[in-house]
């Protein structure tokens, strides 16, 4: 019979093959689901994976992929640093919201003054906001030994309440006829995270995401901090002997991931979203966790995973409006991707063996 046997070492081959295999299996299982819904499975899969990249309107979709992937990559890069060191920041969604609030708040405070300095100040405020929000679980953990998973997660709901409070109160557009939501930053040039190339939608957040990938790569491979992060995750005891201070590492990892999530929030609120509104956040902070693992917690992997995730979103949207697929089917499809990735992932750590049953 078929049994699982733990490998002495995680398989490098499987680690690399797993994501690709997971995508292929998802295509097959997803295709079967689409067929069950009465759609042509090949056409549906083609629409999701091919249409945004090479279809009729690819020139619009390709840069949109980067726009959609940017916040995911930015957040996932930060999370991955912590995850590698066994520091679990699950509340990036909250840090994303706070970054957007502090960043947009700084911009709106200057309204209607125009200055080159306003946008850089907003970027700084966004990063600081996210950092500060992540410091709460960080300090509580270091000082009182609380669990950062629970604290950071619960702070997401606090942040959501704050967001609603701000959209209805302090940051509300005074010319908005009583409707909630701030001024639209698109109409305020100094604070607008405008597109860098005409008609692409590509904004500073995309640039920041790419820079973050490069920095994280250098940090992990060349810098002593990266070594400490990896060591703390793989061998906590050895790390302590090597002089790694767990408290310091916790604060650095949570702070970095918080700041990056805050940045993502700022770029989003000042760019594609345009305004602080009650339902500004759409779950990037949680999706980024998936992206981080899909990318094997490796900066380049995260870059690719973020783009793949963006492709399933945008391709999924295309399939929805072109083929009339229900939104739930697309969510199922994305869920399958994760499910199969985890399933295939098992082969990195285990191998399948045929065992003949012993005769008693």
């Amino acid at each position, binding site marked *: 019979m078929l049994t699982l046997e733990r490998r002495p070492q995680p398989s490098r081959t499987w680690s690399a093959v797993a994501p690709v295999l997971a995508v292929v299996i998802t295509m097959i299982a997803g295709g079967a689901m689409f067929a069950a819904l009465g759609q042509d499975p090949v056409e549906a899969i083609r629409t999701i994976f091919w249409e945004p990249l090479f279809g009729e*309107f690819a020139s619009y979709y390709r840069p949109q992929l980067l726009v959609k992937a940017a916040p995911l990559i930015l957040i996932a890069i930060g999370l991955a640093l912590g995850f590698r060191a066994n520091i679990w920041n699950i509340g990036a969604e909250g840090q994303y919201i706070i970054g957007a609030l502090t960043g947009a708040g700084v911009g709106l405070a200057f309204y209607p003054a125009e200055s080159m300095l306003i946008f850089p100040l907003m970027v700084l405020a966004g990063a600081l906001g996210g950092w500060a929000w992540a410091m709460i679980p960080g300090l509580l953990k270091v000082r009182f030994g609380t669990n950062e998973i629970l604290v950071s997660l619960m702070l997401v709901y606090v942040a959501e309440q704050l967001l609603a409070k701000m959209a*209805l109160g302090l940051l509300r557009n005074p010319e908005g*006829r*009583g*409707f909630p939501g701030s001024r639209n930053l698109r109409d305020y040039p100094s604070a607008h995270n405008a597109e860098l190339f005409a008609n692409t939608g590509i904004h500073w957040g995309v640039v920041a995401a790419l820079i973050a990938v490069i920095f994280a790569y250098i940090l992990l491979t060349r810098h002593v901090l990266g070594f400490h992060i990896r060591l703390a995750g793989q061998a906590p005891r050895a790390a302590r002997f090597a002089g790694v201070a767990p408290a310091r590492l916790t604060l650095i990892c949570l702070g970095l991931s918080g700041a990056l999530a805050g940045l993502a929030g700022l770029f989003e609120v000042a760019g594609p979203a345009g305004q602080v509104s009650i*339902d500004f956040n759409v779950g990037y902070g949680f999706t980024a966790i998936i992206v981080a693992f899909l990318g094997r917690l490796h900066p380049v992997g995260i870059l690719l995973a973020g783009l793949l995730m963006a492709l399933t979103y*945008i391709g999924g949207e295309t399939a929805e409006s072109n083929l009339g697929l229900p939104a739930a089917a697309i969510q199922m499809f994305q869920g399958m991707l994760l499910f199969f990735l985890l399933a295939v992932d098992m082969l990195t750590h285990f191998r399948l063996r045929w065992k003949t049953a012993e005769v008693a």
Partner: protein
Amino acid sequence: MTLTRILGAAALTLGLALPALAQDKTKVGFIYVGPVGDGGWTYEHDQGRLAVEEHFGDQVETVFRESVPEGADAERAITQMALQGADLIFTTSFGFMDATMAVAQKFPDVKFEHATGFKTADNVSVYSARFYEGRAIQGHIAGKMTESNIIGYIASFPIPEVIRGINAAYIHARKVNPEVEFKVIWAYTWFDPPKEADAATALIDQGADVILQHTDSTAPQAAAEKAGDVITFGQASDMAEYKPTPRVSSIIDNWAPYYIARTQAVIDGTWESTETWDGIAPGMVEIGEITDAVPADVREEALAMIEAIAAGEYHPFTGPLNKQDGTPWLADGEVADDATLLGMDFFVEGLTAEIPN
């Protein structure tokens, strides 16, 4: 190909096609905030879409996107539709306002219709329904039927449309029952069945025996049914599966005539940017069957009020009315103007709930 070139090409084809539109299918797109199966708000918009398909047959093709988040993703969803050749796009939630305006600017030849907003452009119309007329009827029935004198209200977002509804319902409940008290829960969502069910249960626990809702799912109806002895009203859609109780009546949004008329205008080339706010009289707001659970005399009164509103003899916001803080708003016999109603950000006197800000 760049976007500008696509746009250019699109404009050119549209320009060339205009005289010969009769042979060309007109493409009408719909952007929904919830799933088409929500049984409420989005469901009724989708019924409107289906009515367009049925009315025009092969002449028109419709497309839709459901559960579109209100924010950055909305702009892409609308752009996508415009790129794929939609001639007319209905964006059916308040939160799509700025996204609609942004896309409309890039596609001057596509017509846009935004529901419940206030920003217009040469190619952007706004439309909404005077739901408060229906709320007045609900308030009347609720005030008459409550025994605990506590009426629960599941509000979504504190925007004028929702505040208007609470005021209209309260004014008419108090008129027939001075003891009545409104408890309001702000759910901060249009569609979230578990959250809506929680809100309904919380209100029932606080003694409410009537639940009014401004959220889109049937979850509050189910919660009321479970609790027993609680009545509700269908929101946006008839929610007939909960007849005769807990659902004793409903407000039905009937978008079909408007959608058909606007599509016809695009086909004829007579479409113009307009601001539409229709109520019971033109049929955009319908009152669903008042069931036998409502005493006959109350039903008669409700039907009479519907008739008076439809005939223009009665306006639900007629003075004397004071604002919540006691400052006078409308003098005796004075009727509220549309501008105040559209931007309504205050409760009327007697309401004890607060508008969050």
